């Protein structure tokens, strides 16, 4: 067996590891809800504010302060639960998770323990090749975020070796929903891809539901990835590690791959995997041990006595269900059908982030094929050139629709259309405005064309004679001359017809 060594950690090549072991993953995703105020607290939610300014006695845990549940946060949690095909609890309580840590102002986190708001659901995740993989959801529960520690001094930014630490409580109390999967089995070698696709699908759902901006780079969505290996799919579950705060899609995939290779090396050498929390290092792509998780950790959970139970009425839940937007997976399937795209075409559209743009362009009147042609062609090239996202280009789907309408009506041809689009992208106005300002319309007035034809024929009498003499192919030279004279704004086919009839020749 070949092994590679990275800072004293033995790794087994991924494919070999998968040959010998069956990976089981479990993913906990925390999403910060985009409510105006915090989970239990009238303090505002802000990003990037001065430290400790978005706080109140409640988020600072001052003596005497009491929590009150944010109704919007409950509604968002129910939305998420319904979107994940979960059951919604008729009555559930918050609990206190007791532990001492400076970023937890009360020294307990108000969370849900044995009574989550949503439970027993699933999410069908589409992989890149179109395979659909079902991830079973155990629960989705509400809780509050902790503050943010900054460890100053020392080289690692971690608490060890730091001279002192600062705590910012602006984040303390921000509403979170934590979504916990059941053990995900059967993914085999595709476990890293499944993990990534699942987190990405959740992110898309959060955005579609409007419950969070779900910006990974801001930590709106954070994933903890559990992984264990077992000899065969029939074996009992192995010892798992929990890799914390894996905060990009790519990292989720890499972290799973890394842990598969690392644990395989340990097991293959006859060792045992330590049940522990591990840190993910984005820069080096490795995980390192955090604190050891043992049974000794006792959070002394008990029902939060300062809060009355949350009992969403069935009417309310059904009202929320009825108001759910179409979810990304369903929408994708519907549009693929409606637009008649091939599966690979649709995947390209999705990967390019063009789905919304094309949908809006179609809504503006363009055919799905034309809309795809513009966004995945000319505009995709421009975006790549300018190194921006498609949606960031200074052109709206409505304008693309208008442009296509000009083509469809014959007022411009494809070549002119590209020039009009250049004008739009250059900020010269709408397609119509650019067309007028640049004088780019197709010349459809036969009189004007005939005048141009007569001029060209007069300038090249020898060519005219040859055509009259039956050498019809010589007409090309005259057409070229006319097109040049009209700066390309003529319909070449029409020009050819007119020249031939002018010269009394059958085309």
């Amino acid at each position: 067996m070949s092994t590679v060594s990275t800072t004293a950690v033995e790794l087994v090549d991924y494919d070999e590891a998968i040959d010998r072991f069956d990976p089981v993953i479990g993913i906990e995703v925390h999403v910060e809800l985009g409510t105006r105020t915090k989970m239990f607290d009238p303090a505002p939610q802000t990003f990037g504010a001065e430290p400790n300014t978005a706080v109140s006695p409640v988020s600072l845990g001052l003596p005497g302060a009491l929590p009150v549940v944010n109704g919007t946060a409950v509604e968002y949690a129910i939305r998420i639960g319904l979107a994940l095909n979960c059951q919604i609890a008729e009555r559930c309580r918050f609990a206190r998770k007791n532990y001492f840590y400076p970023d937890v102002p009360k020294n307990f986190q108000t969370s849900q323990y044995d009574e989550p708001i949503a439970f027993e659901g699933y999410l069908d995740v589409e992989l890149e090749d179109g395979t659909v993989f079902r991830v079973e959801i155990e629960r989705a529960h509400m809780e509050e975020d902790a503050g943010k520690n900054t460890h100053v001094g020392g080289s690692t930014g971690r608490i060890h070796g730091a001279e002192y630490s600062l705590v910012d409580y602006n984040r303390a109390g921000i509403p979170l929903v934590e979504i916990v999967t059941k053990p995900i089995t059967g993914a085999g070698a595709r476990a890293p891809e499944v993990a990534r696709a699942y987190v990405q699908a959740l992110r898309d759902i959060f955005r579609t539901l409007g419950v969070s901006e779900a910006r990974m780079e801001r930590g709106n969505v954070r994933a903890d990835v559990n992984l264990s290996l077992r000899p065969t799919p029939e074996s009992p579950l192995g010892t798992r590690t929990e890799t914390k705060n894996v905060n990009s899609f790519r990292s989720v995939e890499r972290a799973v791959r890394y842990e598969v290779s690392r644990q395989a090396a340990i097991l293959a050498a006859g060792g045992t995997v330590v049940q522990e929390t591990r840190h993910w290092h984005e820069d080096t792509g490795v995980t390192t041990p955090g604190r050891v998780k043992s049974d000794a950790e006792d959070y002394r959970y008990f029902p939060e006595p300062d809060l009355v139970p949350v009992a969403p009425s069935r009417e309310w839940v059904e009202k929320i269900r009825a108001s759910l937007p179409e979810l990304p997976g369903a929408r994708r399937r519907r549009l693929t059908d409606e637009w008649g795209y091939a599966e690979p075409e649709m995947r390209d559209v999705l990967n390019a982030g063009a789905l919304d743009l094309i949908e809006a362009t179609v809504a503006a009147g363009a055919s799905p094929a034309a809309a795809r042609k513009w966004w995945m062609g000319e505009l995709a090239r421009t975006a790549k050139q300018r190194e921006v996202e498609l949606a960031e280009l200074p052109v709206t789907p409505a304008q693309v629709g208008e442009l296509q309408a000009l083509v469809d009506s014959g007022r411009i041809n494809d070549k002119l259309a590209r020039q009009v689009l250049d004008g739009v992208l250059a900020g010269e106005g709408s397609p119509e405005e650019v067309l007028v300002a640049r004088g780019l319309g197709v010349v459809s007035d036969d009189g004007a064309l005939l005048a141009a034809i007569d001029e060209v024929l007069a300038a090249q009498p020898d060519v005219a004679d040859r055509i009259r003499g039956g050498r019809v192919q010589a007409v090309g030279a005259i057409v070229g001359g006319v097109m040049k004279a009209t700066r390309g704004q003529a319909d070449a086919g029409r020009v050819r017809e007119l020249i031939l009839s002018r010269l009394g020749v059958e085309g």
Partner: protein
Amino acid sequence: MTDLTRLSAADLAGRLATGEVSSVEATQAHLDRIAAVEPAVHAFLHVNGEDALATARDVDARRAAGEDLHVLAGVPIAVKDIVVTRGMPTTAGSRILEGWVPPYDATITTRLREAGLPILGKTNMDEFAMGSSTEHSAYGNTHNPWDLDRIPGGSGGGSAAAVAAYEAPLAIGTDTGGSIRQPGAVTGTVGVKPTYGGVSRYGLIALASSLDQAGPVTRTVLDSALLHELIGGHDPRDSTSIPEPLPALVDAARRGATGDLSGVRVGVVTELGGEGYQAGVRARFEESLELLRGAGAEIVEVSCPHFTYALGAYYLILPSEASSNLAKFDGMRFGLRVEPTEGPVTAERVMGATRGAGFGDEVKRRIILGTYALSAGYYDAYYGSAQKVRTLIQRDFAAAFERADVLVSPTAPTTAFRLGEKLDDPLAMYLNDVATIPANLAGVPGMSVPNGLSDDGLPVGLQILAPAKADDRLYRVGAALESLLENTWGAPLLSRAPELEVVT
């Protein structure tokens, strides 16, 4: 000239309304009385003289301008030091909060300020309200005005003693297992624990969230009703606050004062009396039952068999919740901060050193108890079982209230004991609350009314309990008993207390 400190709050309010007396005069009179008797009583941890007089001046000016004021506007009040007051030190009787000045007001404080009650100061208490004698305060003992060698009850001994010593006509207390009612009983004053959720807990430093309730401490039943109506009612900042209006308490007190209790069924709880209750306590209780019967009440005997387990359940639930509620006192954000004298200064070690130095023994005892009771593997046996007992006690109450409109018992088994007498015997101390605890476990309201003197010449109280949200029944029966007793005595009970020596 009338001694303004001897007037009831209602009487003083009347004189303020007619302009016969100004709030500045009334407030100054109480501040003078505080200065004169505090060396002997030590009811206050902080006296708020300047600020109280400023409020009084403001109220006087507004009254002069013809503004419509609250009935208690200008009547000074003392506030237990567990209620958060912006700009005024709030310690909860603990070293760990020494010097902490809260940046915000409790809802109760806001209501007092908005109604224009000058806040005279903050009253002494057992540390974090853990105790029945105020001896667990980190800031010295409060002395019972009836006998300075005796305890004023607890945890709200400061509020009760302040009212009994005429340092304040009104005070705010909090009651987790009897901390308003038992001090009321042993100082000859009135104390009311409202229905759980009837008065906002926002800004009360939590002892046990599911048991804590703030309420009035006064010398008359009517005064309690006036204060209760001011501080009670829904508060959106407290999710356990009852979202309904209070019953008409002042009306009930006035109706009761007529002394007619025809048609009222009064239940005597078998389990709250007899063995363990001082003879004088029992005698006064029996006499009062006769008075109630004479006023037209029907006296019935009711049994609440699970009350026997109340004390045990209480001492699991309270420490469990307290162990979590008190976790925030760690030296990281406010209050005392102690760094370890040797070894590395880490957050964890600072927390440990701060809590070690800042908490007193009784607080540590209950934190340890609660931490243990909530531990994995013990939760069901301790906290879980205690919650079941709680349910059984609620059912006992429900059954009893089928047969009676109110329940009565002695408030406390004995009169005030001597300072230091039970300090080394926590169990003996805990037994003081045996009659008051069931109400907290069930969330029902209770009142202690002065019920005469025991054989040792010290005051005893009679406890009245009513169903949840029927606090008005307490006031009707309490005011009736007060009026019947005062007719018998010819004067309020407190008039028989010895005059305190005053410092001039």
